């Protein structure tokens, strides 16, 4: 199967003031890939993801989307973002809209879809995440797991090519983690291209076909889940993983 590179990150660096958060990051994502980024807190995982969605402007380097560098693309950020969905740790659902509106507004205002079409697609994905009963609810009336499932439906209803997850289960109560992970699992099964920043090691190992381990702003090691989890080449990776094993 000949897979195409959707995203290529080239020599990406990001500094906040004098603080160097990302250094010379290099990796690619192919169609249908599920890439998980793991690493301890403060290693730059989330910043990397936010750079990929241009919520942070990289200090240097390139992000190639279908071979085109999107950083130098003037004023193209909104259009690019409509192809690259993002799911946040803190959900970030629009508090002033119902669940259904949350999933429709982007389609109507950004993609220019008609109301009926937008509603149909929103319902399709809300069904998929098991939230179609709650379309009239406002975000404040939902539990964390429900909010995150709606957030996934909102991102999916834009029909993105890549979906980014920024620690989607970190803000959830333990009993709600499962429902979100199972939604992500089924997206992965459908062939969705995903980049997932997560602390759920078992999930990362199960779902992904590529794992990136970050430490102190650089990619320390990357490879297939089996390689990385069972036979880590670097001592840092092994140390990091052993902290999860001991639990």
């Amino acid at each position, binding site marked *: 199967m000949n897979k195409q590179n959707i995203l290529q990150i080239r020599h990406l660096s990001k500094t906040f003031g004098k603080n160097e958060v990302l250094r010379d990051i290099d990796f690619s994502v192919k169609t249908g890939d599920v890439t998980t980024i793991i690493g301890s807190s403060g290693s730059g995982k989330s910043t990397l993801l936010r750079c990929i969605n241009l*919520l942070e402007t990289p200090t240097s380097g390139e992000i190639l989307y279908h071979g085109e560098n999107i950083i130098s693309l003037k004023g193209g950020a909104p259009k690019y973002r409509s192809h690259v969905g993002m799911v*946040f740790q803190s959900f970030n659902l*629009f*508090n002033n809209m119902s669940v259904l509106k949350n999933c429709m507004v982007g389609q109507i205002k950004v993609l220019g879809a008609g109301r009926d079409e937008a*509603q149909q697609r929103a319902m399709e994905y809300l069904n998929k995440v098991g939230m*179609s009963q709650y379309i009239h609810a406002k975000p404040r009336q939902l539990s964390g797991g429900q909010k995150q499932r709606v957030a996934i439906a909102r991102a999916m209803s834009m029909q993105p090519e890549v979906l980014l997850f920024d620690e989607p289960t970190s803000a959830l109560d333990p009993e709600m983690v499962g429902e979100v992970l199972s939604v992500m699992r089924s997206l992965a099964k459908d062939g969705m291209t995903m980049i997932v920043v997560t602390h759920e090691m078992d999930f990362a190992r199960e779902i992904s076909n590529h794992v990136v381990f970050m430490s102190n702003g650089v990619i320390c090691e990357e490879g297939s889940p089996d390689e990385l989890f069972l036979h880590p080449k670097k001592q840092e990776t092994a140390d990091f993983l052993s902290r999860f094993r001991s639990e």
Partner: protein
Amino acid sequence: MGTFFDLFTDVAGLWQKYSSQYLSGAWSTIKLAVIATAVGCIIGLACGILQTIPHAKTDNPVKRVLLTVLRAVIRVYVEVFRGTPMILQAVFIYFAVPYFTKNAVRLEMVPAAYLVVSINTGAYMAETVRGGILSIDVGQTEGAKSIGMNHFQTMLYVVLPQTLRNILPQIANNLIINIKDTSVMFIIGYSELFAVHKGITGATYKYFPSAVIAMIIYLIMTIVCSALLRLWENKMDGPENFDIATTDTLAHTSGMINYPNKKKKNGAKRRRLALGDLR
């Protein structure tokens, strides 16, 4: 007791003779206050959108200069109109136009009054809106950006509706302040309630009874406005509970149907479910 009886007869007498004047004065007051507050809000919201346009060092120089100038203009506008008395602003604008045009152009007093109160309210609202926008969690903006919205769309559909809800009490404040403070517009001859009161006392010398009438009318206007704005607040908050929507045909008989693709007119009853029932 006798004095109160006298007051009552004086008030009744004044009302009988001049009620239409009081009422038309009150109408002018409320019209000016409501319209100027609305226009002021629009000015404030516009300033809010313009002030929060994101700027980065990597932007091209033309855009950066434009944004800097824009911010400076808004800043000056806010400081000048917040920092001087409205009564003076009225005189200033009313007489500035004929002065600079050598009497060729004269401002009518009615449009001048609307203009002055609107831009005065706008100056306060600009700061209120700015604070309101800052109070909205940055996650809301990021959520909107992540689905591809630009700054204008983010503001219009996500941030400002929430801002508006948060600053509604302040808008109510402004409206009530305007109802009272438009009385200074008598200085350029705008005949609102206070001007009517002044006119009537000039003709009848019944200062106190007329003041009683004006007080009561002002109070009625402000209380009604504040009640209406509270109603609006509640409406914006929406219902406490939400309807469950279902495609399960068995559930249709239970009346729990409010599915968007079905016609609403099919007579199905909607059952309100409290949030507590769901858990």
